[in-house]
């Protein structure tokens, strides 16, 4: 009978907590959205599955060795850990309250040395880092995965339309207003006392408005790792929703006549220009904003591999095999942050709300900027391509093209919209660099 009880007490069903049930449902919801609704399936399938794995009770896949020991260790071990951390446990209290007070000790005033000592005890007792925790450390804490994805994006990007019409860079710049307006919104929410975001967290949330998955993950891993799960989910979910979010805003801000504007055909761009461009961008980054150099450096490297034409094999790997491998690791690692304790909070709702506002403001700013440029410059600019200034390559450009075709079935804006679209990638990486410089 005792054995049966032990087995029962070790089962997932016995240890399941309400938060974990909710998170398992969230994981399943993400899988549903990815598989049936085709929302960014390449990322949401791994993220959703990772989220489910992370919330399996007792398995502790997303926990470090020490956290696992605290979570499931026997009372004797907990006492050892407490003494290693320089604290003591109330002998009257229950084991569960011991666990919470140990967690407080780890989060609180324990020195790095004490933590290391406790870690040694935990691994001595046979606890190891969870699988997802290892993925997270390797892929995201180190910053490697978002950077490699950025290299792949660089290798997939054609700067031709941008080189043919460099002024569209300003549209990409304007759309970054979404990032900073959202940052301000998050700060405002916390100063009104509705949420509690620090400036670092507000900056990480703002980056969602850049509509650039790897950049958001990179920035939040540096500035606010505790919010990474919610931020990554919001960023990718809303990127999938770009075709729903943007068109109403675009129609609202433009007249039918403006949407019908046809643009002059782009000049062809020589191969040499395309080769020189990434080098030029890299030099500017090195001169003006070294903090953006991890992101833009990898981006330029990927693009140079694509354009130089002598390393086809490397470029092909960066665009296909490598980016796919890293996407799997990155998705699972992000999923590991979908744990009940950190994800189920008012802040997550706030992030989701702010994220959609960020997209809206970015789109608005891009369209308005395009209208302004139309007034100032001689060359006609269709304001719809301003909306492509939020990065989300190539979805935002396709949306601009589609809305343009609705007004004038012979007006193909896709190539014109690709200019601001890739400008948005550069713009959001620059914005990320500024934030890291200012807050990091």
């Amino acid at each position, binding site marked *: 009978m005792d054995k049966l009880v032990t087995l029962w007490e070790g089962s997932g069903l016995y240890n399941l907590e309400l938060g974990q049930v909710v998170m398992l449902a969230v994981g399943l919801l993400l899988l549903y959205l990815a598989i049936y609704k085709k929302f960014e399936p390449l990322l949401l399938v791994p993220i959703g599955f990772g989220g489910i794995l992370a919330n399996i009770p007792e398995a502790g896949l997303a926990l470090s060795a020490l956290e696992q020991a605290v979570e499931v260790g026997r009372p004797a071990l907990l006492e050892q850990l407490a003494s290693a951390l320089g604290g003591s446990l109330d002998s009257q209290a229950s084991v569960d309250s011991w666990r919470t007070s140990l967690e407080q000790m780890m989060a609180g005033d324990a020195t790095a040395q004490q933590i290391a000592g406790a870690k040694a005890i935990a691994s001595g007792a046979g606890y190891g880092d969870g699988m997802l925790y290892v993925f997270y450390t390797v892929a995201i804490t180190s910053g490697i995965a978002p950077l490699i994805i950025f290299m792949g994006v660089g290798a997939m990007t054609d700067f031709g339309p941008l080189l043919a019409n460099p002024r569209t860079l300003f549209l990409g710049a304007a759309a970054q207003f979404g990032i900073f307006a959202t940052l301000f919104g998050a700060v405002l929410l*916390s100063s009104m006392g509705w949420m509690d975001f620090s400036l670092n967290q507000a900056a990480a949330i703002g980056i969602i408005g850049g509509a650039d998955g790897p950049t958001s993950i990179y920035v939040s891993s540096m500035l606010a790792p505790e919010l990474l799960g919610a931020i990554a989910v919001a960023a990718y979910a809303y990127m999938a929703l770009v075709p729903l979010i943007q068109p109403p805003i675009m129609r609202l801000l433009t007249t039918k006549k403006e949407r019908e504007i046809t643009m002059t055909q782009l000049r062809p761009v*020589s191969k040499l220009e395309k080769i020189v461009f990434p080098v*030029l961008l890299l030099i500017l980054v090195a001169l003006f904003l070294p903090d953006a150099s991890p992101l833009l450096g990898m981006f330029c490297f990927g693009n140079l591999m694509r354009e130089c034409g002598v390393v086809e094999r490397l470029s092909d790997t960066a665009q296909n095999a490598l980016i796919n491998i890293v996407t799997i690791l990155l998705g699972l690692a992000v999923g590991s942050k979908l744990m009940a304790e950190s994800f189920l909070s008012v802040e997550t709702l706030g992030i989701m709300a702010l994220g959609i506002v960020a997209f809206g403001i970015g789109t608005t700013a891009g369209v308005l900027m395009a209208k302004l440029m139309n007034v100032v410059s001689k060359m006609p600019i269709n304001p719809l391509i301003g909306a492509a200034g939020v990065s989300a390559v190539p979805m935002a450009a396709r949306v601009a093209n589609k809305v343009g075709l609705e007004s004038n079935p012979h007006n193909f804006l896709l190539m014109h919209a690709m200019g601001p679209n890739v400008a948005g990638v550069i713009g959001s990486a620059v914005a990320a660099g500024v934030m890291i410089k200012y807050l990091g």
Partner: protein
Amino acid sequence: MQDPELLQEGLGLMALGMGFVFVFLGVLVFSMTLMSGVIRRFQPVPAPAAPRARTQPAASPASQDDETLAVISAAVHRYRHKTRR
């Protein structure tokens, strides 16, 4: 909480960030235009022949077109002449 301070810092970061993004991309526009100009002027490879004709059709004088036409027709004539024999 020092709320006004946080707000102020948020505003500051917003202004600084937006300003910097615009300045940086402005510099990028400038240097891209310069780079493209230099390359298009100094690259005498056969590729730009097509672009130049398309980007500035009005600028190319008519006499040059006539000359090209003459050269091409001469070549075609010669080729036909040769193959017939």
